[in-house]
């Protein structure tokens, strides 16, 4: 890999003093290899090994227990002929795009607002973050109530005199995903805000002073200078948000249980339902293999670009 060798060369040339005291060049980076051992083991044995295991068993008819009854592509054929799965991936695409965009925007704006030397920063930060701490089971129920047509928001507005007001997302198959999105954003934006805030705090205050001296406006400073500098933070945030989207499960179960009908089903729920509800591990593994495949197709080229290319400032 380009980075690694490049990096090695740079440090060789610049750290001759350090090297002089270490006769064996091979072991120069030994400590870093030792320090990375737990991570390498996890990556290779658990995640890579576990993925292979899952893929292998997706070609079997495993039911309650993983067993080697080879059935070829049967599980995949069934998967792609199941209406619920097709609905699931459409829902995920819709929810995923909206959730990614809104979480990033809201998270960053809130962090920027909090970073304006305001009073009560602790209070505001805790308010935006607290939903992250509460279990999904009950927060799903709360949003179910708030969005309930009879005693939630719709009911309140109608009581105030606007009789024709209609806001009933959880019982309307066409817009149920937006009902989930409202709760999902409420739950997830606080953490992204925190990450953004940590990123903002990692930026040298002098940058701001310099920008002011150069006469650059606040918004422009954010867009032109701060955001490009926070690139690694945004990468972290995007990975965090997308991994949450792919794994979206508890919220759906708590808020709609996939309904009305199958209109708010998502892939992770399909996997869980197949594995533990239907006692058909093979089907669940086939579905999760498809999910992982799409992740790998997106992630690996990106990773090559990110790590394989030249290092960025």
């Amino acid at each position, binding site marked *: 890999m380009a980075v690694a060798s490049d990096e090695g060369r740079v440090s060789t040339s610049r750290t001759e003093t350090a090297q002089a005291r270490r006769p064996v060049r091979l072991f120069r980076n030994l400590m870093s290899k030792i*320090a990375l051992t737990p991570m390498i083991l*996890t990556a290779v044995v658990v995640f890579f090994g576990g993925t292979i295991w899952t893929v292998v068993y997706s070609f079997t008819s495993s039911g309650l227990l993983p067993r080697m009854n080879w059935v070829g592509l049967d599980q995949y054929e069934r998967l792609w002929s199941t209406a619920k799965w097709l609905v699931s991936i459409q829902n995920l695409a819709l929810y995923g795009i909206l959730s990614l965009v809104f979480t990033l925007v809201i998270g960053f704006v809130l962090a*920027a607002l909090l970073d304006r030397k305001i009073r009560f920063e*602790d209070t505001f930060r805790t308010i935006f973050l*607290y939903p992250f*701490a509460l279990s999904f089971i009950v927060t799903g129920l709360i949003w179910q109530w708030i969005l309930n047509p009879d005693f939630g928001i719709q009911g309140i507005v109608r009581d105030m005199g606007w009789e024709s007001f209609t806001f009933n997302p959880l019982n309307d198959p066409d817009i149920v995903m937006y009902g989930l999105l409202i709760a999902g954003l409420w739950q997830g934006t606080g953490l992204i805000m925190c990450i953004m805030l940590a990123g903002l705090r990692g930026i040298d*205050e002098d940058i701001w002073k310099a920008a002011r001296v150069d006469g650059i406006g606040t918004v422009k400073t954010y867009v032109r200078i701060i955001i490009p500098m926070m690139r690694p933070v945004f990468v972290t945030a995007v990975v965090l948000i997308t991994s949450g989207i792919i794994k979206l499960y508890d919220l759906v179960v708590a808020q709609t249980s996939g309904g009305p009908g199958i209109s708010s089903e998502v892939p992770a729920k399909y996997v869980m339902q197949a594995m533990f509800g239907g006692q058909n591990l093979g089907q669940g593994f086939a579905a999760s293999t498809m999910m992982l495949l799409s992740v790998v197709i997106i992630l690996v080229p990106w990773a090559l670009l990110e790590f*394989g290319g030249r290092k960025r400032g």
Partner: protein
Amino acid sequence: MANPATLSSTIAATDPVTSRLGEGPSGPRPRKALSPRNIMLYGTLIIVSLYYLLPLYVMLVTSLKDMAEIRMGNIFSPPTEITFEPWVKAWSEACTGVNCDGLSRGFWNSVRILIPSVIISMTIALISGYTLAKWKFKGSEVFFTMLLVGAFIPYQVMLYPIVIGLRETGGFLTDIWQATCNVFTAAEGACRGRVQLFGSISGLVIVHTIFGMPINVLLFRNYFAAIPDELFKAARVDGAGFWQILLRIILPMSLPIIVVSGIIQVTGIWNDFLFGVVYTRAEQYPMTVQLNNIVNSVQGIKEYNVNMAATLLTGLVPLTVYFFSGRLFVRGIAAGAVKG
């Protein structure tokens, strides 16, 4: 366009005595208390806060009502008569199966699981992130990419492979231990001890460390990557090694990211239900198992007020962590160190 590179020369030219160490946010200082700008700022924050607080409000008032009032159906109305009975019940009386001592039963178990899991998982993630950012070696990024894929696997899918893995590892370690032990002692039965990874807190700590790793390593790696290389290289020229640089330079600069990682780990581990229930035994179940049993019963009446109180009670620990650790969201240390 002003990019960071040209700015740095400007920085050097401006006031060098800036370091307000350990203090407050960036951005220009607000001018007047009631300027239109401030009204906009606080107005936005307060309106957004209302969206975030609405569910909390509903939970709070519901938890203070009795069931008769809840059945009347107005979720927004304040309780006509405040009762703390649901809170008492959630904490110490609600039945979660045969045992009727509410959430209190699992509280200390949760603490016992939380502390080692958070410390170990964060330490390993921090060291790994540091290595990946500053001590790359050939292939390290390949392993990191592999790890990142792990962030996208629904962890329920990994349940059985991990169970089998822990069983086998436990058996393997037992064999090693008994073989080694037998070399040193001849006494019959002296080496009967077994290494139990599955069904013990140590197994659970390992599992939390594994599943917290992708996100937290990414978090630390990307944060450390933003620390200027000059600083790091200067330290190496001065003869500082792997650990010295980590402890003396990197660690003091990474308080905000440690807070973020801490928030993720404390919340994730405290709220974890599935791993807690799979990898321990009944007497070690964490508090979330009781929470689940209170709020998630399929049959029978649902006591919404107790459910709300139980949820809020369970959330108190992470909430406290958020509130107080937030004070570590400081800046300036990094800036000062760079210039020093």
